[in-house]
């Protein structure tokens, strides 16, 4: 079983990333807060399931993503792409050439691996563990996500640094 301190330290460290990803899925700050909070409690109850610290990050993320899905089911909410809130864009802080809209327009199946890879810095293997899919599927989805993103940005060249 993961040491209690290791668990709480990892949870503290990942908190912002877990929230960002929840927000990208749920598009509601209140729901994203619920997802992270409930996910943390659930992860704590089930911490016996993970014995390897190297998998803790992916495991926590998977639990919170599952919680996001539970919330979607429970609250019967649907988020048509056009109605997704724009986060910081509302305050005009970002001049990204439509990148946010293009990312939000991606199917969740493509958007989540993309954000895990380039926003949260997950390895392809960690993404595979998080989403319970083969690494080859992750590679495929990332490829499709980048391609779709390029199409969404009118064939602009998108480089992930």
């Amino acid at each position, binding site marked *: 079983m993961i*040491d*209690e*301190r290791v*668990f*709480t330290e990892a949870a*503290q460290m990942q*908190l*912002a990333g877990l*929230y*960002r990803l929840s*927000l*990208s*899925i749920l598009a509601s700050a*209140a729901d994203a*807060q*619920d997802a*992270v*909070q409930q996910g*943390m*409690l659930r992860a*704590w109850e089930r911490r016996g399931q993970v014995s*390897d*610290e*190297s998998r803790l990050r992916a495991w926590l993320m998977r639990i919170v993503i599952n919680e*996001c*899905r539970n919330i*979607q089911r*429970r609250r*019967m909410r*649907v*988020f*048509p792409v056009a109605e997704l809130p724009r*986060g*910081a*864009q*509302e305050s005009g*802080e970002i001049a990204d*050439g439509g*990148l946010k809209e293009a*990312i939000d327009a991606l*199917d*969740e*199946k493509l958007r989540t691996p993309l954000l895990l890879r380039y*926003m949260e*810095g997950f390895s392809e*293997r960690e993404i*595979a563990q998080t989403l*319970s*899919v*083969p*690494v*080859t*599927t992750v590679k495929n989805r990332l490829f499709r996500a980048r391609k779709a993103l390029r199409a969404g940005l009118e*064939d*602009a*060249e*998108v*480089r*992930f*640094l």
Partner: protein
Amino acid sequence: MRRIDVNREMLERMYAPMDERFERNLRAMIDTLPQRREKRRSTMKPRYALAFALLLIALAATALAAYMVSQGFFAEVATLEAESGYYEHWTLEEKERLAASMKAYGILKDTALWDEALSTKSEAKREKALDRLFAQRYGVNGRTDTITAAGIIEKEMGVYDNEWSLEDKARYAAILMEFDLLGYDTNVDLLPGEDDIAQEEAVRLAREAVLDAYSLEENELDGYRTCVHFWEHRTEIGVKPPYYLIEMACPEKTSYYVYVSGDGRILSTADGYKGVESPWEDAARMRRMQEAEQTGMDQLVQAHVAGLETLPVRRFERGGMVKTLSALADGTVLLTGLRYDGNNDAEEVFAESIDAAGQTVWRAAYPVGPKEDVALSTAMQLESGDILVLVERRRWLDRDTLAYQYSEQLRISAQGELLEALRLQPIAALTGQERDFDESMFGVPGHGGLLVSGAMGPKHQKFYAQLDEQGRPRFVFNLSELSGYAPYLLTTEDGYVLTAWNEAADMPILRFYDKQGNLLSEDAQDEALRGLRINRVTKAGEGRYAVTSGFMKDGEWVLAFIDDSGRLLEKHVRTFASGPILKPSEIAKVGERYAYACRHWIERDVVGAQHLGLIVWDADTGIQEYHMRDERLQDALADDIIAGLYAAALGEGQLMLAYTEGTDVRRDYKTTLLMAETVQ
């Protein structure tokens, strides 16, 4: 061409940060997690009081004065939690008693503030002052509702896992056990005996094992801290000897775990302890995963499929999310589920009769109210032909306030006409046991009506209630005596079979009931059933039942036949994969065969490579796995969410399977029916 460079910070800024206040509270909550336990208020029984008194005498009799502080303190705090629950339930007198004990044991270095609090004349002020002091010392962020016995003791004695001696761990565990404060699914610290190797020797052996298994150099373990337990799982006490767990951990690096027996052997999975594997096994697992990733998961699946007989299947697509699939008396299958209409933002419960050609014979729909949350747990056909569907309806006024929650029984005619929506009695009324609030009720097909289950009474005891077709309880099974044994009541053709699992004895518990709920026989305790964790029972002839076990145990599928007193008649075993089996459907009796569908791993620990197979047993060939020839099926398995997997036999030995795929965000669920023709 326009060029956009995307970096991590840019992506992070796209999503508004957490509300500061929420973040502060959440971080505080995470810090309190180690102190969280299930809220409860327990009462110490007289026999515990006597045992505790004896324990104190025994502890006091030990000569080492240095131990007295911790022993007395353990006992004092554990008694309080056992007698009175958590801090917020303690009386002023109990708080005063603990404060006085802390002074007496020399735990408080500076007693001035405590003396002042204890001498305050007004009771209210005295309690307030003590609350403040206890919260400052033991509460997280100064809150009294985070104070627990474990938290108090760790505060005074250091972190349990890392800083306590084996003696203190064992002593504390014994006290927690004595007062029933320790969970059942947990390891219990014990003391090494005279014949066991010393802790230092166990650590040395563990270190050698890690260096060897992971091909490390000595200096690569520099900076790792070592945590030692001598323990075993609670259910294995008295069954197997305890062992050392040596954990070597270093921040941001992989932790190593080594299990060493009392006689100095490195334990492995072959020793059969819960959660125990050798470092060599762990290293091999990591290598297998890396190799599998390099080889490609698809190749593993293809190699597995090449060894299976392939069944042609027919595919029928439907919208919505499947919740149940069952055979109807007219030879069709009944598909029930929930369907969301995104264009009109409306949801409905649906029931559909589907024939062997995938054609809808009839369809009944029942609308879900605006902002309502509906769950559907079972559907069954009565002898009259009418169909009952159990749904639960909830509506939230806001995030925390439930406007209503109740279960409803929908009655549909054999021709698909919705006849009635009957609101069922709440659990408290069904069971006669008061509850602070009503929880969810689940259902399975019963005899003459739905067999519902849930938690009853203030202690959340598991119950089953057999309802008649008007939703009135005919009888209630109170399963509180089997708490800790995971009891399930299963409906069979001629009554019910209760199955539970005695973890310590490694034996199933079986009870047989008639349709009126009268106990017919119980617990034959046939040694031949040892290890058989029964989770499905199907009537298989006069006085004979087919039972299955081991869905989640290393891909091993067991089908056995037992008689009506729980004695083993035949047992068939086959291992399909070394990983677990996932999402098994119900077992369908297809002619003389038994079949179910499931996802399973191809190789142990290679999570990504999975196959969706059809598992069939018959008397001649034993257990076989079939591959269903449907490209979309395996694609869905790899790419999309598959919610649920259901199986039902049609007439003429055909098997219908149903699963759902789709994405959660848009709830564009799609249910697929697969007809396997040649299972017969």
